[in-house]
């Protein structure tokens, strides 16, 4: 896209700048629309599980329900509690929302369709998702109310606990892929299972890590059965209790954008991203983005299925699962997987990975960014 803007007579820097802004809009707006429809799907699935119809009034099959809700929320009055810390109270939903969107910058939707194809893509995701806790903690504290504060404490402990095991799972994937670059990780999965199937999902050593990652993703996004931060039977609505109108909507959108992000991470890390499930030529005629969206949607269906069926965890069970089960397990698998890779000579056989397609090479990080994932034999 940079080349296009350059052809309009702009200097490279400004062409890159405008192209990046356009790219951000091209990702953020579809993500928002996807969030609207994913909320609809969520409500439909839960309706079906509890033998209801779900939203079916606004628009054909209720398809416009989310937009109607958005409009309603937009027209409501914003109420700020008089005892609240006003600045932080208003900042918290903005942070949640911004952080939820910022992580999408490094997600490759298809081959070469990525805003920032940076070397440390996975670390960037980890860094940005670790910021998500601030929105919750700040809102809980600034509300100056007991239930939100309890919820904020729970959220902080929960997110930090599960981030640790997510980090170790990512290490396992990175060990096998040999790169932190998201495009490189997807390419490393091409023909991974005996040259037939694409995806680390089919690897017997990485499959347990996939299960742990999926459950940790549920906990990280505070989805049922780990939604203790907004357990309505104990904490009213958790950290969102004092929020109304657009501030509440921002939390809501941010939460679902985060859930979608975790689903797409499952897709990219374990299911081969935009690659078709089978490494078979006719399947490659389907555009990569279709495969990516299908897989992400599949994981979202799993998320809503779990929400509708699994009862909520007790808080001590949640902490036990994170620290006493997942952490030792993922740590053990890091050792096992690196040992296996060393024993089989994975690191010395310089099987060159396909170079990540460079889209809009950023001038700022150019010096260190030009290196694709080929030099693994160091």
């Amino acid at each position, binding site marked *: 896209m940079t080349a296009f803007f350059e052809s309009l007579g702009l200097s490279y*820097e400004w062409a*890159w*700048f405008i192209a990046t802004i356009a790219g951000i809009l091209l990702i953020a707006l579809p993500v928002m629309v996807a969030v609207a429809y994913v909320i609809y799907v969520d409500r439909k699935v839960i309706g079906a599980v509890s033998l209801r119809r779900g939203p079916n009034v606004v628009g054909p099959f209720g398809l416009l329900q989310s937009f109607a809700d958005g409009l309603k929320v937009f027209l409501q009055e914003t109420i700020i509690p008089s005892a609240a*810390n006003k600045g*932080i109270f208003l900042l918290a939903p903005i942070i949640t929302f911004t952080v939820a969107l910022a992580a999408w910058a490094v997600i490759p939707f298809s081959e070469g369709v990525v805003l920032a194809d*940076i*070397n*440390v893509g996975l*670390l*960037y995701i*980890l*860094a*940005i998702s*670790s*910021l998500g*806790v*601030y929105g919750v*903690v*700040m809102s809980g*504290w600034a509300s100056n109310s007991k239930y939100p*504060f309890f919820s*904020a*404490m729970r959220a*902080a402990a929960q997110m*930090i606990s599960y*981030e640790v095991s997510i980090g170790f799972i990512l290490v396992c994937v990175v060990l096998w892929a040999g790169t*932190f670059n998201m495009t490189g990780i997807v390419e490393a999965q091409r023909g991974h299972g005996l040259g037939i199937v694409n995806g680390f999902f089919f690897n017997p050593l990485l499959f347990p890590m996939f299960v742990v990652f999926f459950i940790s993703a549920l906990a990280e996004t505070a989805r049922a059965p780990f939604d203790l931060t907004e357990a309505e039977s104990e904490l009213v609505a958790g950290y969102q209790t004092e929020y109304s109108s657009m501030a509440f909507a921002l939390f809501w959108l941010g939460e679902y954008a985060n859930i979608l992000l975790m689903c797409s991470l499952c897709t990219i890390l374990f299911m081969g991203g935009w690659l078709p499930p089978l490494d078979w030529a006719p399947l490659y005629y389907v555009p990569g983005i279709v495969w990516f969206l299908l897989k992400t949607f599949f994981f979202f269906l799993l998320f809503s299925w779990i929400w509708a069926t699994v009862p909520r965890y007790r808080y*001590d*069970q949640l902490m*036990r699962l994170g620290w006493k089960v997942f952490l030792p397990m993922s740590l053990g698998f890091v050792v096992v997987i690196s040992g296996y890779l060393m024993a089989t000579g994975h690191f010395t056989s310089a099987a060159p990975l396909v170079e990540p397609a460079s889209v809009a090479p950023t*001038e*700022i*990080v150019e*010096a*260190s*960014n*030009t*290196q694709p994932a080929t*030099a693994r034999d*160091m």
Partner: protein
Amino acid sequence: MIQALAFYLFAGVVIASAVMVIMSRNPVHSVLWLILAFFNAAGLMVLVGAEFIAMLLVIVYVGAVAVLFLFVVMMLDIDFAAMRAGFIKNFPLGIAIALVLLAELGLGIGAYGAGGVELGSADGAAAASATTSNIEAIGALLYGRYILLFEIAGIILLVAMIGAIVLTFQAPPPGSRAQQDIGKQISRRPEEATQMKNPEVGKGVEL
């Protein structure tokens, strides 16, 4: 042009938020300004091409350390009057620390003016070049040349962690509710946990 703009933006925000850390009256605000300073420092790291360090800064400091700071500060109910009462008593110590910091700052600026330090080149693949990424360069250095120091640092941290756990861990008394036997809870079946009773009107249930 954009780089210069970004640099001045990040640097300006770092300095401004560092000032706000010590200026703001609410300790929670201080921690939040500190987080902003960390975040913008990470931005500066990206500008010099050290994106790995930048990401680690955000993950470790912003994502973990600062959350714990915030956690602790939020739980504390800080009494400002009591804090100011000790001002006169601690004034000489404060002045001494400030003077030391000023002297170090002066030394640092003087040393910067005198030119860069010749550290010699590291053997191995440590030299930063356009062909190796940040992560690989740091990894080669840490696991190659400085492997011993790296492992010693790791062991010191491990010992510190175990020490902290030993010092703070208080085993709950046996039989207390804090001791949960998950295996027992999971293996509990409805047959042993519930009884079907059909009491007559006006009579209680014998369990």
